[in-house]
C-alpha cells in the first residue's frame, strides 16, 4: 500500500473536504500542517502552479485542487462510493459541486460584511443561493447524496461549521429553518455524523482566526 500524505491548513474547509473523504474510505494518511504565511519548499514543490493547500501526495505523486483530489480519492479507493454509478446522476452531482465552487465571491463579500456595515447585496445573493440549494439540489432528500452522504455533501459541508462562524461574525443568520428548513436540517444531520463531528476545527479557534483574517486585507490561500 503506497503512502498517502495530506498537506493542509487547520482552518481551511478545503483541507477538511479531503480529510472527510479519506476517513469515509478508511484510507490511512499522514497529515502535514502547512504554514501559509511561510510556504514550505515541500508545498512549493508539490503545487508549483497554485502554491495552495490541500495537496494529496500518493506514493510521492502530488494532486492539487480539493475537487480534483475528491474525484481521485473516489476512483482510487472505490469502497463506500461517494458518487452515483449512473452517468447522468454523476453529471448532476458534478453540476452541484461546481455550482458551489463558482460562488466564492459572494461569500467573500459576506465575510467582509460587518454589523456596522452590512453588505445587503451579498446577503441577498446568499439567501437566494441557499434557496436554490434547498429546492433544486437537496429537495426532499436527507443528504445531497440521498440516504447517505456523497461528494456533494462533502463539497457543501463547510456551510455547517465555517459558514456558521461567518454568520456569527457578520451578525446575520441566513441558514435558518424559517427560510431554508430542509437545508438547515441537512446541516444539522451532516454535522452530527460521527466522521464529521470528530473531524472539524475547534469553533472558538476558528472564529478567532476569522477575526484576525478580517483585520488583514488578504485572506489565506486555500482551495
Amino acid at each position, binding site marked *: 500500500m503506497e503512502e498517502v500524505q495530506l498537506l493542509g491548513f487547520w482552518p481551511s474547509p478545503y483541507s477538511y473536504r479531503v480529510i472527510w473523504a479519506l476517513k469515509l474510505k478508511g484510507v490511512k494518511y499522514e497529515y502535514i500542517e502547512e504554514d501559509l504565511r511561510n510556504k514550505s519548499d515541500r508545498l512549493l514543490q508539490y503545487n508549483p502552479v497554485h502554491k495552495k493547500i490541500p495537496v494529496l501526495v500518493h506514493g510521492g505523486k502530488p494532486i492539487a485542487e480539493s475537487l*480534483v483530489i475528491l474525484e481521485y480519492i473516489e*476512483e482510487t479507493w472505490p469502497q463506500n462510493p461517494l458518487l452515483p454509478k449512473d452517468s*447522468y446522476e454523476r*453529471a448532476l452531482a458534478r453540476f452541484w459541486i461546481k455550482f458551489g465552487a463558482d460562488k466564492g465571491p459572494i461569500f467573500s463579500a459576506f465575510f467582509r460584511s460587518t454589523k456596522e456595515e452590512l453588505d445587503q447585496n451579498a446577503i441577498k445573493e446568499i439567501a437566494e443561493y441557499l434557496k436554490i440549494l434547498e429546492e433544486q439540489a437537496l429537495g426532499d432528500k436527507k443528504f445531497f447524496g440521498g440516504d447517505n452522504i456523497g461528494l456533494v455533501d462533502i463539497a457543501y459541508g463547510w456551510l455547517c461549521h465555517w459558514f456558521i462562524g461567518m454568520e456569527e461574525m457578520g451578525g446575520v443568520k441566513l441558514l435558518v429553518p424559517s427560510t431554508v428548513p430542509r437545508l438547515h436540517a441537512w446541516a444539522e444531520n451532516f454535522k452530527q455524523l460521527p466522521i464529521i463531528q470528530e473531524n472539524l476545527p475547534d469553533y472558538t479557534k476558528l472564529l478567532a482566526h476569522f477575526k484576525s483574517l478580517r483585520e488583514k486585507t488578504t485572506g489565506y490561500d486555500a482551495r
Partner: protein
Amino acid sequence: MAGEVVLLDFWSSMFAMRVRLALAEKGIKYESKEQDLSNKSPLLLEMNPINKQVPVLIHNGKPVCESLIIVQYIDEVWNDKSPLLPSDPYQRAQARFWADFVDKKVSVAAKNVWSTKGEEQEAGKKEFLETLKIMEGELGDKPYFGGETFGYVDLSLITFYSWFHAYEVLGNINIEAECPKIIAWAKRCMQKEAVAKTLPDQKKVYEFVVQLRKMFVSE
C-alpha cells in the same frame, strides 16, 4: 448509449465548442440548436434554469450543463471509442487539474483582454500570456497535453484558439512571439479533422467580439 442528442449551442462560444468537439471526436450524431443569447428561449431556460447558459446537452430529454461536465458525461456514456480522459486515476487527476486551470485562470484572463481597457486590460494581457506560458511548461515536448493523442486538456484549451486573432487585435499582443509552443500545438490540433471542422473562422469571431466589446467598454 444511443438515443436523441440535442445541443443548445452558440457558434462562437468556446465552451459550446468543447462539446461540439467531443461529439465530433466520438462520431456522435446530434442536433445543434443555435440559441439567441440576447433573447433566451423557453427551452434554454427550462433546460438550464440555474445558469441560463449554453452549452446544454440534452440526452434522451435530460439536460446536462457546464461544458467540462458535459464532456466527461460524453466520455463516460460513449466509452467505446476515442477516450478523452486517460484511464489511469493519477493521469485523470492531472487532466482534471489542467482543464480546471484553463477555466479558472486562462479563461478569466482572456476575457479581460477583450472586455476591458486601460490598466485593467494591461493586467489582463499580462496574466493571459503568463497563463499560456504555464500551459507551455505543462505541454513540454509532448505533441499534445494528452501525450501522443489529443485528449481532455487539449480539448479544453483549443477552443480558445478560435478567439486568438480577436485577442491579438483588441489586446495588441503577439501570442506567437510570446508563446510559440502554444501556437505550434494549436496548429497541430487544427490538423485534426474534428478540430478544423468544429472551430469557427478566427476572422468571423473577431468581428463578433468587436461588437461584443461595445457592451463592456465605452470608447
